[in-house]
């Protein structure tokens, strides 16, 4: 706790110091974009400090095209060079943890799935609570239910899970989760292996909550094809190896559809999915740019950019979310081991 206070104090000091330095020269050196005229003073100071740092490095769980669009827009808006790499949720945790522990985080912040890693990173002092980070006007009217004050972060993107179907095999026949259990799909359901990441646990909890554990045993009786991830699963779907992918990811399905593949995405009303949250690195090389980036992601404009692609819901735009969206934090009760056993999968973990 004390160290966290000291960190935020240090951040504030840093802000003040850089603000003084930048004030004299009238903006960062070599930065082309001006500070927006309508920005309140605290924001102006942050922008100037960020521009002085000139660069931002972040780790992204959102897909590459989205991360790129957001980075480009942010770079253009503030004149800050942005670098990112795209990682899966578990790689991100491994990597960020190792780097933070070595005392030299390569990323100034990450934008990743909400998993047990998020509170863990905070408790180890690897990240800073957004509320304590000195982000101007935080949370600035951000909807309350998307704020996670205990974990020091906020949901900036929701990726509801759905069903991807092969339009030639099952076009129009699948509307909701329970349709998957129709015996005619026996051997044609592609199950994305839930053993690969804990991020699938809330989803299966939702299914249990909606339909009971029988859904899982009946799904097991459907003799599903186990795929090692959403990407290969959707490719298999396109090729006709199976007719249905559960859970499906809309961005991947839409991408294949755009290339002419017979793939469609169905969004059942009841859904949950990866909830994407930012995490500020405590020892970031570019702390001000990172704070400005979080400010941007939580702004109307930035958040819209982040959630421009179909398949992601914006907390600032309730219409972009499925009708009965359930939060990850409310979906507990069935352990991952139980889920794997019910689905007839070999166990990993304790």
């Amino acid at each position, binding site marked *: 706790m004390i160290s966290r206070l000291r960190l935020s104090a240090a951040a504030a000091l840093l802000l003040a110091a850089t603000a003084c330095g930048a004030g004299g020269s009238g903006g960062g050196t070599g930065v082309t974009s001006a500070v927006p005229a309508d920005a309140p003073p605290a924001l102006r100071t942050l922008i100037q400090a960020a521009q002085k740092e000139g660069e931002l490095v972040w780790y992204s769980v959102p897909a590459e095209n989205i991360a790129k669009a957001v980075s480009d827009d942010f770079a253009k808006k503030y004149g800050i060079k942005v670098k990112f790499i795209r990682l899966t949720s578990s*790689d991100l945790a*491994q*990597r960020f943890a190792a780097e933070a522990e070595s*005392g030299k985080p390569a990323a100034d912040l990450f934008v990743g799935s909400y998993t047990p890693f998020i509170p863990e990173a905070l408790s180890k002092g690897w990240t800073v609570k957004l509320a304590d980070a000195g982000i101007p006007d935080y949370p600035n009217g951000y909807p309350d239910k998307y704020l996670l004050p205990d974990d020091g972060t906020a949901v900036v993107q929701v990726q509801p899970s759905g069903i991807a179907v092969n339009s030639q095999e099952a076009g129009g026949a699948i509307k909701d989760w329970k349709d998957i259990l129709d015996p005619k799909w026996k051997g044609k359901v592609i199950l994305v292996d839930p*053993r690969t990441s804990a991020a699938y646990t809330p989803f299966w909890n939702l299914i249990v909550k909606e339909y009971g554990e029988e859904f899982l045993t009946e799904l097991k009786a459907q003799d599903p094809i186990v*795929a090692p991830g959403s990407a290969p699963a959707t*490719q*298999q779907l396109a090729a*006709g190896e199976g007719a249905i992918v559960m859970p499906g990811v809309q961005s991947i399905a839409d991408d294949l559809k755009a290339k002419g593949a017979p793939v469609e995405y169905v969004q059942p009303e009841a859904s949950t999915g990866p909830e994407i949250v930012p995490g500020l690195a405590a020892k970031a090389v570019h702390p001000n740019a990172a704070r400005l980036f979080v400010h941007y992601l939580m702004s109307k404009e930035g958040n819209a950019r982040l959630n421009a692609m179909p398949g992601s819901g914006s907390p600032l735009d309730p219409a972009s979310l499925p009708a009965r969206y359930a939060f990850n934090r409310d979906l507990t009760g069935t352990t991952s081991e139980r889920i794997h056993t019910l689905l007839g999968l070999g166990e990993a*973990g304790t």
Partner: protein
Amino acid sequence: MTALTRVRDRLGALTPFQVAGTLLALALGALAVYPLALVVIRPFVTDGRIDLAPIRDMLAQPDLVTLLWHTAAVVGASGLAGLVIGSSLAWVNERTDARMGLLTDVVPLVPFLLPPIAGAIGWSLLGSERSGYLNLALRPLLGIEGTGPVDVHSWYGIIFVYTIYQVPYVFMIVSAGLRNTDPALEEQSRMSGAGPLRTLRRISLPAVRPSMGAAALLMVWTGFGLFSIPAILAPQAGLDILSVRVVQLLSFTYPPETGVAVALNLVVMLVVTLVWYAQTRMLRSTRTAGIGGKGARPRPMRLGRWRTPVRAAIVLYLALTSVLPLGALVLVSLTGFWSNTVDWSRLNLDAVVRTLTDTATQEALLNSLVLGVVCATVGVLAAAVVSVLVRRSGRGAGMLVDAAIKFPPTLSHLVIAVGFVLAFSGAPFHLGGTLWILMLAYISLHMPQATTASDAAISQVAPELTDASRISGAGQSRTFRRITLPLMTPGLLAGWALLFVTIAGDIGASAILAGTGNEVVGFRILEVFANGDYAMLGAISIILTLATSLVVLPVTWYARRRGGSPLSRTQP
């Protein structure tokens, strides 16, 4: 005599070469052990005391027996198949008139040029039950409806793909061994009335037993380590493979279950140790046997009526293992996605263009090739020095250093990569996010391959050749530079090619160590895979394969030319 003067005496007796070599070996040992210790020791120590709970947890895994059985069966069966196919290919190419020049020289290595993740995807594109390209093509020919006839997501499918990646090791190492075995042994066998097959079985194979031992060790080592192939092919087959389970334990949730994962890896280490022990014993007992040619050029054995079928079988094997998966990747890259109907008019080069114009990919490709060349060169040279020292010192310290260098990489590369971050990313080294940290990790992770190749190379240099140099007045360094190294060159070049290819396409360590400042191809492939863009994945893999071929094929060809000329007669 006081202890101090004794120490000085000892030091005085060491030559600069020994000092430098020993330091190098110790540095390599430290590079392998230190990062690992940072990750591995922690779960086994609670409150300053050794805690064996992870081992208990590992043994308590409900399906441990299934897991070990599946893994052992896949690694064992593919290893045996690899040994049979690889040494047969080597023998045909080295000793019979069925060889076809450059084709049989280098093409057995081509499947190896395809990074395992691309190979696995290629095979799943080919051999999936319903929509695999191979099944789509075969069904009309065989008059089968529905599914099949091939299913790559099966015991035999996975063993088959493992085998493809094991054969090149055997081929390379056994070829080198055969090249240094006196063909008179075989000619004698033919004179005694034995046919080609009997000669192969009774004479040629026993003569290259040390090489086969080295190949077996390398296969066990890589077999347990292969991750991409089982990760993509095994879940659907219902097979549990240890390398996949370890990664699941490490990445399913945070904090990772490092203890159990490492404990599982200890099982692998145990197996590798046993094979290693058997292999060193074998090397020792047969070191001087079977070799003695005095410059006689082997005359290819005439296979007679078997020549055409043997050639046909080789061509079939090459087509099956190289052309098919590459073809599948080309097709998916031109189609844009995996489809069960190929609309030839819609094929396009979009993915290839996207890949070639993508600056991140260009940079990654360049970095990977440079790292491949640098790390392979450094690694092989270092391995050569270590092998020479280990051979000289025999048991004891030499074995220990050898083990320190060889064993750590049997652990999951994910674990080791995290260790490298902890060891070198922050103070005092500050190598995080640089090419240097990748270089250190790549060299350390690939030392087993490098030292296996250099051990084989040094075992083919008769000790008298270095003795003669010492007698001629040359010191150890000069002897190493002028005699040992040149004589080891063909074997070392083969090892270099292996290292270059695996490093250029590395995925395991790159997943954690590569990033914005040090993008490499393996990492790029992972990014593209996670995005579900098979078309671009295919394009990158093909470009990588082409680029590595352009480096590896000339090197292999040169090594073979040197190896095939009278110059290569490293035995006096």
